[in-house]
């Protein structure tokens, strides 16, 4: 792993040629290292027994050198010989009762080595150590140590505090320098100024055997601010790692046919003109033309249509569609970056770029705060220079005290503490907050737009009114349906089973890819499948048709609503929001679902651009729109909306475009999210008020020169602790 880490931050070398050779070696080493490394996700692992089962089972597989479970991340990393395939290991684990999915280790590297987080934690630890020791010495001074003893204590404090401020303050110094160079006055400028001024004035005072030194304040400042920064970083890191894991679950591989042999290849290594085999149930990895086979494809993720489309030789398919019934061979027309999936993702990038950046509460507070602090401190300095007739030492002391007291300990902690607490709460409910400001934006939402297929519904068909069909037809349909893995057939067979239908006895059942299933009953052919193939008239909704003795029966399906969808819609409407349903599907299923969930505003047959236009129209009315969608046809709307949510089953492009990801199947947490978003915004405002209140009391004291280091320490720790406690109050 160290190789990977080092490679990630190859230093800029003075001589490029010297650097190139070891780098090439490293890349080679990296490759072999990565090839042998298999990562599996273990969503169900939760106990000590799971760990030993998984590790034991994997260690017994020949070729596996080592396997180590990480229960916190619910993953196992396996070091194995190159001929060990992930599929083999997943099968071994499945035999031991452990669900496992392959992860793409290339996508996970960034979170595996959370360098920045470790760096911050290290500085935080140093700041904590010095804070404790300096505080110990400072208490002695405050309680009345005099003369030589006091000076000794101050010197010892200085020897601890100065290196600490230099080491622990670096993140602030660096960002302050960057913002100064960009000509802005960020929050880190007054922080750095306070750290530097407090340390240098204290050293000077100690040198002159002065009474007051602010070493404890400087170190405490560094500690509390680092704590805020670390919380902020961790929230983001957790969200990023979960998002990366979702992306890594889709291992970008495809089966390429080379001279008649099937070879598994990374999608990036596929070129136009290659032949790719797509098995039933798999997603099209590339854009292409069908050159062999017949099947049906599900385009719902791209267009929102719930009805599968027939595909035969010559049909154009795009990446992201799902192959349903028969194996298809494609001639690749575009792969990877050129595929339509990626082009859509590029559209999203454009839409995101055009979106005005949201200024968070913290940014707005900082914009107000930074100039104010500088003005206060400088005017205190100026006034005391004038009032004391040029006593530089006293005036600098006062302005340092003002900077220390106003320093945004609570401000830097107020927002991260609330966001950490809120996103932790939502994560436990199955919502992943990808962006910290999403909570604030969620709080402002007053209109919600839902997509239908895959969002409000699970994308799993459910037969309607089975019992209205004649028993004989049902029995035959159940028998035929049992012979296919097509989603409609599976749903029909399952529905018949729960209704207690005994399948009829048929002979010679076979599946005709792209059409349906046929069998022989009493010497006559019976068929279940597409309308034209069965000689039936097509219904306007999802249905499958049965031809029995020349008579046709239509079995209609409806898409099952996601659990919690009705509750979420009801809760959002009760909160006074306008709820709309926009779907690319045909009218009948959309009307039915809208009626079922109690949504009065709905539209069917909506094009992707129209969805985005509707979001824009509502925004123009002054509404803040929450968009919930999963398909490629939703991505533009997701990116354009004020805040957006997509389910974990959504396409990668849709998940990337949205601010929040719904991890579970249940949709009820969406209503919770809005409530928690509102609550956390309220907490943030409260926290600003609390820290503002402390400043209102303490700043006048500092201005008139009455703020002792003890008062500064008290104000700082009290306000930091109160804002942290207030953040915990979230329910």
């Amino acid at each position, binding site marked *: 792993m160290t190789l990977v880490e080092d490679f990630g931050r190859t230093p800029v070398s003075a001589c490029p040629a010297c650097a190139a050779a070891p780098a090439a070696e490293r890349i080679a080493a990296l490759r072999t290292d990565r090839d042998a490394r298999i990562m599996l996700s273990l969503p169900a692992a939760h106990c*000590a027994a799971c760990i030993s089962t998984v590790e034991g089972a994997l260690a017994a597989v020949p070729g596996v050198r080592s396997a180590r479970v990480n*229960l916190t991340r619910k993953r196992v990393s396996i070091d194995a010989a190159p001929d060990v395939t992930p599929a083999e290991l997943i099968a071994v684990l499945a035999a031991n009762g452990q669900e496992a999915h392959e992860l793409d280790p290339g996508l996970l590297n960034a979170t595996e080595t959370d360098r920045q987080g470790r760096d911050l934690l290290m500085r935080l630890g140093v700041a904590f150590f010095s804070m404790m020791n300096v505080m110990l010495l400072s208490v002695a001074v405050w309680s009345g140590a005099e003369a030589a003893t006091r000076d000794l204590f101050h010197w*010892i404090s200085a020897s601890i505090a100065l290196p600490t401020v230099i080491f622990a303050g670096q993140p602030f110094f660096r960002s302050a320098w960057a913002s100064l160079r960009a000509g802005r006055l960020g929050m880190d400028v007054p922080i750095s100024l306070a750290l530097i001024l407090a340390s240098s004035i204290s050293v000077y005072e100690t040198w002159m055997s002065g009474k007051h030194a602010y070493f404890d304040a400087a170190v405490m400042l560094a500690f509390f601010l680092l704590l805020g920064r670390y919380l902020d970083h961790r929230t983001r890191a957790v969200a990023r790692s979960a998002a990366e894991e979702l992306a890594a679950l889709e291992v970008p591989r495809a089966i390429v046919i080379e001279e008649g042999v099937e070879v598994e290849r990374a999608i990036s290594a596929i070129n136009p003109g290659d032949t790719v085999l797509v098995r039933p149930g798999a997603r099209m990895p590339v854009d292409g033309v069908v050159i062999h086979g017949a099947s049906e494809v599900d385009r719902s993720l791209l267009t929102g249509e719930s009805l599968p489309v027939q595909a035969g030789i010559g049909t154009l398919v795009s990446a992201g569609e799902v192959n349903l019934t028969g194996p298809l061979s494609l001639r690749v027309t575009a792969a990877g970056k050129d595929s339509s999936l990626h082009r859509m993702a590029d559209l999203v990038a454009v839409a995101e770029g055009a979106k005005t950046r949201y200024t968070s509460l913290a940014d707005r507070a900082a914009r107000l705060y930074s100039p104010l602090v500088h003005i206060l401190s400088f005017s205190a300095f100026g006034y005391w220079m004038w009032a004391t007739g040029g006593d530089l030492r006293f005036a600098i002391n006062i302005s340092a005290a003002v900077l220390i007291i106003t320093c945004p300990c609570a401000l830097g902690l107020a927002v991260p503490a609330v966001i950490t607490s809120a996103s932790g709460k939502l994560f436990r409910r199955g919502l992943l907050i990808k962006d910290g400001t999403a909570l604030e934006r969620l709080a402002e939402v007053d209109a919600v737009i839902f997509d239908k297929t895959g969002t409000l519904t699970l994308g799993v068909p459910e037969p309607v009114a089975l019992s209205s069909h004649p028993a004989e037809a049902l029995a035959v349909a159940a028998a035929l349906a049992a012979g296919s893995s097509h989603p409609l057939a599976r749903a029909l067979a399952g529905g018949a089973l729960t209704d207690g239908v005994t399948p009829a006895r048929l002979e010679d059942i076979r599946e005709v890819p792209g059409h349906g299933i046929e069998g022989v009953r009493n010497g006559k052919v019976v068929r279940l499948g597409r309308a034209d193939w069965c000689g039936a008239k097509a219904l306007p909704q999802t249905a499958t048709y049965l031809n029995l003795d020349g008579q046709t029966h239509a079995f209609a399906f409806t898409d099952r609503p996601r659990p919690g969808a009705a509750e979420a819609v009801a809760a959002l409407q009760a909160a006074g929001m306008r709820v709309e349903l926009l779907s690319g599907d045909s009218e009948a299923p959309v009307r039915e679902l809208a009626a079922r969930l109690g949504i009065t505003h709905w539209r069917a047959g909506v094009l992707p651009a129209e969805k985005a236009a509707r979001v824009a129209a509502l925004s123009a009315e002054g509404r803040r729109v929450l968009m919930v969608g999963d398909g490629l046809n939703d991505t533009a709307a997701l990116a354009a909306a004020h805040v957006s949510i997509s389910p974990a089953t959504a396409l990668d492009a849709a998940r990337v475009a949205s601010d929040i990801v719904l991890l579970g199947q249940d949709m009820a947490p969406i209503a919770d999210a809005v409530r928690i978003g509102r609550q956390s915004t309220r907490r943030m405002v409260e926290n600003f008020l609390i820290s503002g209140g402390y400043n209102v009391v303490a700043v006048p004291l500092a201005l008139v020169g009455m703020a002792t280091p003890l008062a500064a320490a008290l104000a700082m720790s009290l306000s930091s602790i109160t804002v942290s406690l207030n953040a915990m109050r979230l329910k």
Partner: protein
Amino acid sequence: MEILAILIPVSLLLGGIGLAAFFWAMKTKQFDDPEGDAQRILTKEWDDHPKP
């Protein structure tokens, strides 16, 4: 007050040991899988003999 000459170095030393332990723990990635480590205590695998 002479005792200070012993007490202050001792308190710094103790704090320093704590800090060094923290550094070591960070460097060796002891915090990578807190949940797994908590659960691993409960396995009986290495109860009878130490892990080779």
